[in-house]
């Protein structure tokens, strides 16, 4: 398993861009955020959360779960669920190249999701806040807090905890077993 903790900015592979370390609020009064893309959707994750890109790590699939639950990761002895928002948002997998596993949080609070490419570091102050959110996919409507626009791309602040809690609930039919 190879991981790239964003807090340290250490990226051993030459083809992986070395991202600048987020600056602290005390120093520059900027609020850094990780910007991740899932299909055409852009999301912001506060930089003060522990985030890492997980590479060369196997996703262990689970039977009889929702299709958007890709499986479970073994991250240093902690079981981390992997969610596939491309399926939830019905986003195409094709146009953004190789997908990466992006983990948010540590220990039993950690969760992972597939993202397109590597995350970017942005300064929230440079983004233009939207007074009103545009029409969003139904699944996101209850979890989007606010939105920003930059170069035509919509970036959403999402309560990932709540979204994944909702997506992780097992909704099933009691019609019996498959035959």
């Amino acid at each position: 398993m190879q991981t790239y903790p964003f807090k340290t900015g250490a990226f051993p592979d030459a083809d992986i861009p070395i991202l600048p370390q987020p600056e602290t609020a005390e120093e520059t009064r900027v609020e850094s955020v990780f910007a991740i893309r899932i299909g055409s959707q852009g999301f912001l994750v506060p930089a003060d959360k522990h985030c890492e890109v997980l590479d060369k790590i196997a996703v262990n699939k689970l039977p009889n779960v929702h299709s958007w639950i890709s499986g479970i990761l073994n991250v240093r002895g902690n079981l981390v669920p992997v969610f596939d928002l491309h399926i939830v948002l019905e986003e195409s997998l094709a146009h953004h190249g190789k997908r990466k596993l992006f983990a948010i949080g540590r220990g039993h609070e950690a969760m992972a999701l597939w993202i397109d490419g590597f995350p970017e570091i942005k300064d929230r102050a440079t983004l233009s806040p939207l007074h009103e959110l545009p029409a969003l996919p139904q699944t996101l409507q209850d979890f989007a807090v606010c939105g920003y626009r930059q170069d035509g791309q919509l970036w959403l602040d999402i309560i990932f905890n709540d979204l994944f809690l909702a997506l992780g609930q097992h909704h099933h039919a009691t019609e019996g077993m498959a035959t």
Partner: protein
Amino acid sequence: MNTTPPPLPAENATGAAIEEQLGRIQQLADQAASEGLYGLQDVNLLLAEALQENPSAAEAADLLTLLSTWHELINGYRHQPLHGTQALIEFLRHPQLKIPLTEDEFALLQEQLVTEPPCFEAQLPPTDDNTATVAARPEQETESGTDPASVPVSPVAQELVDLLLLESERVRTYLHSIIADDKNSVGTGLQQAQDELERLVNASVTAGFEGLAAICVHVGNNIQHFVEHLDSFNSARLDLLLIWLNRVTQYLSTFNEADAGQKILTGLTDAHPDGWIFPLPDEEVRSILAQMRTTSTTVGAQSEPARAQTASDDDVSLILPDDVNPELLELLLHELPGHTLQFSEAVQRLQFGGDNRDIELAQRVAHTLKGSANTVGVKGIAHLTHQLEDILIACAKARKPPGRALTGALINAADCLEAMSESLSNFSPPPDDARAVLQDILDWANRIDRQGLSALDTDATQSAARTNVTRTPETSKNPAPLESQKPRIRVASEHIENLFRLSGESIIVNSQALSNSRRMRTQVQAMQRQFTLLQQLADELEQLIDLKDLTGRAIDTSDQGFDTLEMDQYNELHTASRRMAEAALDAREISLDINKELTVLSEVLDDQQRLAIETQEEVMQTRLVAIATIAPRLQRSFRQACRLTGKLSELTLLGENILIDADTLNALIDPIMHLLRNAVDHGIESEEQRLLLGKPQIGAIVLEFEREGNNIKVCCTDDGHGLDYAAIRATALKRGELQPDQAISEEQLQQLLLRPNFSTRSVTSQTSGRGVGMDAVHAQIIAQGGSLILNSETGKGLTVTMTIPLPLSLTHALLIDTGGYRLAVANKGIVQIYHAGEAEAITEEGLEQLRLEGVCHASVKLDDLLHIPEQRRSQRPYGAVLLVKTQGQTTAVQVDALIDSQDVVIKSLGRYIGKIPGFIGATILGDGTVTPVLDLPELLRAPTRALDSFHAQPMIQAKLETTLPTVMVVDDSLSQRRALEQLLEDAGFKVLTARDGIEAAELLALNKPDLLLTDLEMPRMNGIELTAHIRTQNNRNSRLPVIMITSRSTQKHRLMAEDAGIDAYFTKPVSDQELLLEMQHLLEQTQDRGNQVA
């Protein structure tokens, strides 16, 4: 009445002795008067008068002999009043004393002695040498400058008197309003005066003026007669009433004087034409007088229980009660060291010039400790801190630091408290001198009660105080430590969690090492086979070379000059082949050694695995608690629900000895309590209904706990009327979740109940909130990854089954392959494993079955149970069959292949993945892969298929408390706060807590509780100030019902609290039931007010 004896002749020693005796008798008389024992005072004064009659020398000698028994007689009377009275009267009748009393007067004196029960606890002055008690008397008199027959009026008593004066003035006002010639005026005025007089009677009884109350009743009877016979009332009788009222005023102003009662009784016995219709009979006069004399000494002090004089072993006992609340004990043990240290530091500062702040701090800490110790039931600490608090209050009131002697006693007590604290934490045995220390403190408290602080706390009194301390080194026997008092170490739960996780990781890593060692052994064995083969080949090669060599030599032997039999001839090929054969042999030997080493390594790893498992089990033990520990809370909550609903019901707990993880158990308490309240409130019928339905009068609720694999299953069954499907249907229609003509099964209606905010009731009840509230319970269970199933039978009852997964644990599992997944199947429910070849597939009535050992079993493929897509399924026939028993049936489950069996550590799927039916959790295998752990019986019971068409909605965390009344608890004692919090939460309230008035006021700015419970004494802002603050606010909380719970039991504190605006006042210890009933009453009042406003 105090009489000064005339000078006695001093010409001889007998005269001096008589004079000395006279002085002592005089002291006895004074003391009796100060205690309100006027009969005893009289006998002493009679004796003193007799001695002053200048007896002759011979008579004086006889008298001295006679008087030698007087003190004993007085003591006898104090301890046995009836017997002692007789002895005193007989003594006074002695002819040498020549006491000039008639028989009637003797009888009256005897009656007076009998009707004045002396205080048994009172200490008599010693016969030989007077100590501080007696010596203080003249000083006190000098200081106060009052008649010794009048008892000093305490501020409390004065307040009560003022109250009664106010009432009597109201009576006077109505009497003054009467116009004698106007019958209407007379009738109205008398009736109003009569009503007011009744209030005066009640107030007198409450304040302890029983005599005055009796007189008022008598006068009231007269007024009642006047009301009924208006003609009999005239201006003379009006004057009579007004004069009597004047006497009441006079009496109240001087009630503490010995003859105060006489004033008010004057004239009440007269029966003349314009006088009382019902004069007061003589016999009543006597009894009322006796009551009034008692009143003069007891008013203002009646609510304070008498302070003990001696300390007993029981008073300093640290033995915990059998029913000690472990949580409260934990809290006490947590806060005790800090508080005892704080107390100790404060009293130490007093030794070196501390001020009133230190006294107040020490007093507050003592108060807190007293409350906490009382709550838990540690008598030793409660008694000691109670006395300490009283002493410190006296010091604080006097605004004077205690003197050296008292400070020394306080420091001793602080040391003793610290020793008690250590003993409770099991760091040391109970302090040996606890009883002696308590006795010392009691002596100080009693002296301060009697003589005041200033009169006592001097160096001169130090010796007196010290001499009273009886050191009893072996007072406290060391009892065998109870379970709750065994040595314990407090560790942050986070450390235990980490330890548990690490032990799990250790097992996983060990499994990986074991797995590697197994693979290595397999490889080494393969290598051994190769070496054996190599050796065989080397041997063959050698033989071939030898053969070839022989053949060659036969062709060409002339060159060497030797025959082959004469000398062996070797070439390089020989050497190489021989070396290869030897190397192959060596390699095989080495591989055998490696195999042996690997066998040893496997054994070591096995041992390590066992140790790691044992370590995990031990760590698990630290987190396990018996369900029985919450049984008292459940029973209490259940009883409260029964009381509040007025229903008869019985709760039976089954499986309460099961040990489960403490966190899981805590998380279960709320939902279980809600279920119990629901069962009582909505399930069980009323007594009458049950009898009509032919059910037993008493409802039955059974709460059963069962360990099921890695889950804890809780079934709550009641024999009530079950779910009201019609009401559920009606609510669903109202909410638009059902169409009028839509057919819906009972099972679907049950599911509706679990939807957020679905309730069949619109009115909130305290017992179980707003309606059934099953949605809230469901949300809580789901949040813990559990499931909730309802099973109702109309008219017969409801069973609610909650299944909650337990955290990480270990199980033995089979590793299987099916549908391309590697899965771990917990061995629970698996009764037999077969190879596929042993099974014969048959189809009976369209159902697939497998015949195993001649028995047919229903058959199912695990691929189907798990809804594995067709494209993933193996095309090969299944390889193994697992025979699984569930719900009394056996089912043959077909899997692709059986790989291994091993102990696996079960991990939760994490907070984001909810409960998946049939999944216990997941495990990390030796190669690091994660595989789900299946519970086949559960999977067979409820096969489900995950849906993909789902619109994610936020999980509605329906909190139970959002529908329940909110109560704010304000107390500076953590344990008191926690005890109340637990009681109220168990009773179905949402509870907010604050440490003092300031914090409560801050919380009130943000919250709107329905009721507030407050302690009286708290730092920064006390309960009275808090209540006054609330009442003066012009906001939604200004009418908030306030209940004060305090250890202060005096009328003065109560009146102050009432003036501030409290609604109810409870003195500790408080009965849970009384408190809850009062709370319910106040909440209903508030609701009624709200309804009226609406």
